[in-house]
């Protein structure tokens, strides 16, 4: 089950906690990888750890030219892109009344617009191949909302709407488009939270603990697999029961 031998996956934000875990998990199932993120040194370290079948394709997702170049760079390195994992995401939290246009724009640009451009860039090859998988990492807050994260929640909800629309367009071509919505996961993004904030969040999780990046990665592997071919336009919530949607 979930054998990805011969599949070629482009993973953005691959230097981060969830991105690196997704890359490791896809690689473990046999996929060839193109790792994208800003920090080439971090990507190279991950590539060295994984060994063969791994390419490093650095990209700054806040730079449109860099985004547009990425699908081609990944396809050149791997011979094509069968699986796109839109994982890269940034936060610029602020209360709504204080949120600047720059904070709004920066988050939408990386989390949503870059994902759109990458999906568009990878689509042609997938359509021709009559096989493709797109998996975007969203967030529970895209569904529930979260104070201080108007921009981030909007970007994640935007990914869901984008994915559903694209899923409807390309389902007949063997291309599926889905989202994985993590809840409260142990990563650098959540390490900054104050202990009191963590305690409050944990009390709202029926599973009684934070999730691990590997638990998100497993969902990415499933949705990337041939076995998930009849699943499209969906969001798989991985959150320990924190929200049941």
């Amino acid at each position, binding site marked *: 089950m979930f054998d990805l031998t011969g599949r070629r996956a482009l993973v953005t934000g691959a230097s981060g906690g969830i991105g690196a875990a997704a890359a490791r998990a896809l690689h473990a199932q046999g996929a060839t990888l193109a790792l994208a993120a800003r920090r080439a040194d971090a990507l190279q370290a991950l590539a060295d750890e994984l060994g063969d079948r791994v390419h490093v394709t650095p990209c700054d997702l806040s730079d449109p030219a860099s985004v547009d170049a990425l699908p081609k760079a990944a396809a050149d390195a791997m011979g094509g892109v069968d699986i796109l994992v839109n994982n890269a995401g940034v936060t610029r939290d602020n209360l709504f009344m204080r949120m600047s246009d720059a904070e709004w724009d920066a988050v939408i640009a990386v989390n949503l617009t870059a994902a759109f451009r990458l999906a568009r860039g990878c689509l*042609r090859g997938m*359509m*021709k191949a009559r096989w493709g998988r797109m998996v975007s990492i969203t967030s529970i807050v895209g569904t529930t909302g979260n104070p201080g994260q108007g921009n981030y929640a909007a970007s994640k909800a935007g990914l869901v709407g984008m994915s559903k629309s694209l899923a409807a*367009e*390309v389902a*007949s*071509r063997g291309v599926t488009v889905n989202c994985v919505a993590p809840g409260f996961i142990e990563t650098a993004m959540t390490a900054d939270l104050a202990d009191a904030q963590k305690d409050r969040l944990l009390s709202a999780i029926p599973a009684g603990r934070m999730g691990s990046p590997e638990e998100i990665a497993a969902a990415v592997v499933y949705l990337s697999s041939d076995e998930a071919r009849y699943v499209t336009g969906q969001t798989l919530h991985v959150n320990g029961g924190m929200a049941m949607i």
Partner: protein
Amino acid sequence: MSDIADRVKKIVVDHLGVDEEKVVEGASFIDDLGADSLDTVELVMAFEEEFGIEIPDDAAETIQTFGDAVKFISENAANA
């Protein structure tokens, strides 16, 4: 001209799975050959690759029939 028409016809037949004799000058991809909007995008992509040309979106919209496609490609393909 006939070479271009043959190559275009082959792409249309392969992609839409229609009988060759249905692919005539005035045959509309959507109305006569059963294409949906995504098929028309894929056909344009296939023409671009076959003939090594770029078909801009506004030009692509004017390519409604087999004859339109042959005409556009004849006028724009360098290696045809």
